[in-house]
C-alpha cells in the first residue's frame, strides 16, 4: 500500500535507494505469523545507519526468533521528509513498508547526542505521539539503547524504556516478557513494570528527579518500592559464546562503512580520560582467533563483500594477532578481499603488520596523539610518547606510506597556549621526519591531514566534572592553529565549536532538557550532526524559549560531591574511581592499561572473572 504511494515520490528524491530495502540478505517473514514486530530505528540517514555494527547484530539476532520480525527504519533525508509529509506517508519500515506506528516496539540506537532531534522528528513522521505520557495501548513502545542511552535523561520524556549495556545480552529476556504479557493481554503498564525488573532495563517514567534550588539534582528516586533504585548495565561475559551474525545485509548504495565488519574485541583497557566508550564498554572482552576466523569465513561466503575490517575500540591492542593474521590473510588472499584496519594505535604499530597490510599504502595511516604536549597527553592518560609517534611515522615512510591523518583535540582540561603551539610543532616534526631517512628508501613528501575536534565532557568519564571551554576561547585556539598549520602539504580541518557546545549540553543534560529538545525540534532543528543542517542560532533561540541556560550544563565545573542526573544508572565503573582519575589527571599522573595492572575501577563487581 505504501509502496504505491512511494512510486509517486521516489523518482523525485535524491538517492531513492535509501528507501526501498530489498537488499541481499534482508530478512523476509510472514508478518502475521509473529507475536512481536520490532522496528530497529537509526536516527540518521540510511548510509550512516547501515554502517552500524550493533544494528547488524541485533537485526539478525531478533530475526533468529520465530516469534519476532525485526525491520529497519532510518531518518529520511530532508527532501524525502518533505515529500512524505506532502503525500501524508507515515514513516515506514524498509522490509514490509508498513508504517512503524503499527509495530509493537520501535527501538532507537543513540550513537551520538546530535541525533536527538531526529528521534523526535522520526516519531512525528511516524505519527506516533511524541511522549511516553501521550502514548496509549495502541501505540508502539519506544525503546532506546546505545552509548548515549547511559545518560538518557534529556530524552526521558520521549522514551518508554531504555536498554543499558550489551543489547544481545538482554533482548531475548525483554522480548519474552513482552510476548508473555501480550498473550495474557496484560497491557502496556503491566509490561513496563515487568520490564523494569529485568536487569539492565530502565523505565524512565518510574523514576522521579528532584532538584536543589541551584538547579542541580537532589536525587532520582523510584516512584514505588518495587522499582530498583539502581539500574545496572548488562554485559556479555564471553564474546566467543555470544551471538554474532553469520550474514549481513549487503546494501546497493555505497554506505559509509561498506564492508564486512568483524568484531575482534569489545571494551578498551587504556583508560583515556576523555573517552566515554572506554568506560561504558568495560571490561575488555576479546574474541578468540578461531571464532573470528569462523565469522570471517561465513561472512565472506554470504555477503560477497570485497573488503573487510576488524572492528574494536583499539584494534592493534588485540592480543591474538599472532594467531589471527597469518590465517586471515591467507583466507583474504584466496578470496581477493582487502582488509582495512581502523583506529591504528601508534604505539603498537609494529613491524609484523608490514606484510599483511598492503592496503595501508593506499589509504595512509591515521595517528591520534590527541594532544600537542607530553604534559597534556599525561593529563588525558593518552599513553603515547611523542618520540613513539615520530618513530611510527618514520617506519611508515620507509614502507612507502606517504599519507597521514593526525587527530587532535582542543579544549582539554588544563590546556594552555603552549599545548596548542605543541600541535603545530608536532605536525612540523612529522612533515620533516622524512629528511632524516635514507634517500633510497624514503617515500615522497608526506601529505598530512590534521583534524582537530573539540573536547566534549561526557557522563561516566573522569572528566564528567569539568567545564567545557567557551566557544570564544575555542575559536581563538583554532585561529592560532590556523596560523601554525599553514604549511605546504598540510591540510587542516576542525569541528564547529558551536556544535560541540550543544553536544556538551545534551551529553550531561538532565530531564529538564526534554522541553528544550522539543522546542528545538519545533523550531526546525534536525540532522544537527550535519554541518549543513546545524543551526546554532535556532538552538540559542530554543534555549531562551524553553527557559534553559546552556552554560549551566556545558560550561559549569561540578563540585566533587554533586549528584549527577545519571546517578541512578550503574555502568560498573565506580564514581570514586572516576573521581580519583580526575584528581590524578589534574596532577598529571598517568594510569596504566588495565590489562597490565588493575586499578580497581569497579567493573569486577558486576561481572566477576572476566578481567
Amino acid at each position, binding site marked *: 500500500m505504501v509502496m504505491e504511494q512511494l512510486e509517486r515520490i521516489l*523518482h523525485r528524491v535524491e538517492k531513492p*535507494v535509501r*528507501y526501498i530495502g*530489498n537488499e541481499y540478505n534482508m530478512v523476509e517473514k510472514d508478518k502475521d505469523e509473529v507475536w512481536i514486530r520490532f522496528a530497529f530505528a537509526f536516527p540518521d540517514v540510511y548510509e550512516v545507519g547501515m554502517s552500524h555494527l550493533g544494528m547488524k547484530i541485533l537485526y539478525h539476532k531478533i530475526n533468529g526468533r520465530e516469534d519476532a520480525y525485526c525491520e529497519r527504519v532510518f531518518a529520511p533525508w530532508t527532501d524525502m521528509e518533505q515529500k512524505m509529509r506532502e503525500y501524508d506517508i507515515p514513516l515506514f519500515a524498509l522490509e514490509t513498508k508498513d508504517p512503524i506506528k503499527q509495530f509493537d516496539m520501535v527501538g532507537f540506537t543513540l550513537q551520538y547526542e546530535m541525533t536527538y532531534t531526529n528521534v523526535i522528528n522520526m516519531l512525528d513522521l511516524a505519527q506516533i505521539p511524541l511522549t511516553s505520557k501521550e502514548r496509549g495501548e495502541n501505540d508502539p513502545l519506544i525503546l532506546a539503547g546505545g552509548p548515549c542511552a547511559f545518560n538518557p535523561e534529556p530524552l526521558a520524556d520521549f522514551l518508554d524504556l531504555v536498554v543499558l549495556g550489551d543489547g544481545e545480552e538482554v533482548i531475548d529476556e525483554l522480548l519474552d516478557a513482552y510476548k508473555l504479557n501480550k498473550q495474557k493481554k496484560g497491557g502496556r503498564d503491566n509490561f513496563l513494570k515487568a520490564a523494569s525488573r529485568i536487569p539492565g532495563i530502565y523505565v524512565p517514567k518510574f523514576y522521579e528527579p528532584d532538584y536543589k534550588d541551584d538547579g542541580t539534582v537532589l536525587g532520582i528516586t523510584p516512584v514505588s518500592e518495587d522499582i530498583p533504585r539502581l539500574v545496572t548495565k548488562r554485559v556479555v561475559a564471553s564474546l566467543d559464546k555470544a551471538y554474532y551474525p553469520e550474514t549481513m545485509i549487503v546494501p*546497493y548504495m555505497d554506505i559509509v562503512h561498506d564492508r564486512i565488519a568483524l568484531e575482534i574485541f569489545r571494551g578498551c583497557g587504556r583508560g583515556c580520560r576523555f573517552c566515554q566508550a572506554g568506560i561504558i564498554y568495560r571490561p575488555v572482552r576479546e574474541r578468540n582467533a578461531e571464532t573470528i576466523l569462523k565469522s570471517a569465513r561465513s561472512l565472506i561466503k554470504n555477503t*560477497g563483500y570485497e573488503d573487510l575490517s576488524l572492528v574494536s575500540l583499539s584494534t592493534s591492542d588485540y592480543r591474538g594477532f599472532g594467531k589471527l593474521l597469518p590465517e586471515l590473510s591467507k583466507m583474504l588472499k584466496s578470496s*581477493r578481499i582487502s582488509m582495512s584496519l581502523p583506529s591504528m594505535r601508534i604505539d603498537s604499530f609494529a613491524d609484523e603488520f608490514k606484510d599483511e597490510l598492503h592496503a595501508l599504502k593506499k589509504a595512509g595511516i591515521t595517528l591520534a596523539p590527541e594532544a600537542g604536549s607530553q604534559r597534556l597527553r599525561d593529563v588525558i592518560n593518552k599513553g603515547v610518547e611523542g618520540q613513539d609517534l615520530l618513530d611510527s611515522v618514520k617506519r611508515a615512510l620507509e614502507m612507502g606510506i606517504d599519507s597521514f591523518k593526525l587527530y587532535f583535540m582542543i579544549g582539554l582540561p588544563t590546556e594552555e597556549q603552549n599545548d596548542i603551539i605543541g600541535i603545530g610543532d608536532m605536525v612540523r616534526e612529522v612533515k620533516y621526519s622524512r629528511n632524516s631517512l635514507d634517500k633510497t628508501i624514503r617515500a615522497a613528501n608526506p601529505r598530512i591531514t590534521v583534524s582537530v575536534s573539540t573536547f566534549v565532557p561526557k557522563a561516566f568519564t573522569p572528566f564528567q566534572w569539568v567545564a567545557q571551554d567557551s566557544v570564544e576561547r575555542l575559536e581563538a585556539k583554532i585561529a592560532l592553529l590556523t596560523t601554525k598549520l599553514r604549511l605546504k602539504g598540510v591540510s587542516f580541518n576542525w569541528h564547529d565549536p558551536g556544535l560541540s557546545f550543544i553536544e556538551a549540553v545534551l551529553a550531561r543534560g538532565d530531564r529538564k532538557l526534554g522541553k528544550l529538545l522539543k522546542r528545538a525540534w519545533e523550531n526546525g532543528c534536525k540532522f544537527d550532526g550535519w554541518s549543513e543542517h546545524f543551526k546554532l542560532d535556532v538552538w540559542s533561540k530554543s534555549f531562551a524559549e524553553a527557559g534553559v541556560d546552556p552554560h549551566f550544563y556545558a560550561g559549569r565545573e561540578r563540585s566533587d560531591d554533586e549528584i549527577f542526573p545519571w546517578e541512578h544508572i550503574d555502568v560498573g565503573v565506580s564514581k570514586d574511581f572516576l573521581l580519583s582519575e580526575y584528581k590524578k589527571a589534574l596532577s598529571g599522573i598517568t594510569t596504566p592499561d588495565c590489562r597490565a595492572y588493575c586499578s580497581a575501577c569497579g567493573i569486577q563487581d558486576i561481572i566477576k572473572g572476566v578481567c
Partner: protein
Amino acid sequence: MRLVAKFSKEDRVKYISHLDMMRTFQRAIRRATLPVAFTQGFSPHPKMAFASALPVGLSSEGEYLDIIMESDIEPAEFDSRLNSALPSGIKIIQSVKIDPKHPSLMSIIERASYRIFMPFIMEKLAECTEAFLSQPYVLVAREKSDSLQYINIRPLIHWVKLSVNDCSGQALDVMFNSGSKSNLKPQIFADALLDFLKGDREILYHRIHRLDMYFFRNEKLVTPLDLVEFISI
C-alpha cells in the same frame, strides 16, 4: 571465455543507480563463486561491463552484461548460479557465449525499445501521439553550462505505437536511437509528449520500462543475444 547475459531489473530494484548495479553484480558473482576474470593491478575487479546504463527509476527486461570468464562455464550453469546469488528483482534471463574479440556491447548498441506507461492520460492517446509525431520538429531544451540549447529529437524516434501487450490502453511502445553515437532518453520523450498534451509533469508521473536493445547486422536489427551465431561453427 566471454559471455553476454541478458537480464531484467524489476520492482523496487529499479531505483538503484548504474554504479550500485555494478557493485551488486560484482558481489553476486563473488557469492556465486563464478570463475570470472579479474583485471590486473592494485585493486583487481571483475572484467565486466553493461551494454548501457539504465537511468534510475526505470525497470527493464532487456539489459545486457558483457563478462569475461577465467575458465569455461556452461551458460546455463552461469545463469542458475548467478540467479541464486542475486537480490530479488534482478534476474538473468539467458546468457550466450560470444566471440572474445567482438567489440564491446557498449560500442555496438544503436537502438532501444521501451514501454511507457501514462496512466493518467485520456483515452485518445493514440490520436494525440499521432499528432505529436506529425510535427516536423520536436524541440527539447537542454541545459548547457550557462545557456539553453534546443535539440530536435524527432529523427531519434523510429516508431511509437499503443502497446498491444498492455491491456490498460495507457501504454506506448517506442523505439529510439540509443547508444554512444546517438541517444534519446525515454524520459525526455515522455516529458515532451506530456508538454505537447498540456499535461502536468508533476501530477502525470509516468513509468518507463526498457524492452530490449538492438544493433544492425546485415541491415537487420538484432539483439546482443544474436551474437551467439558468430561463434565459429
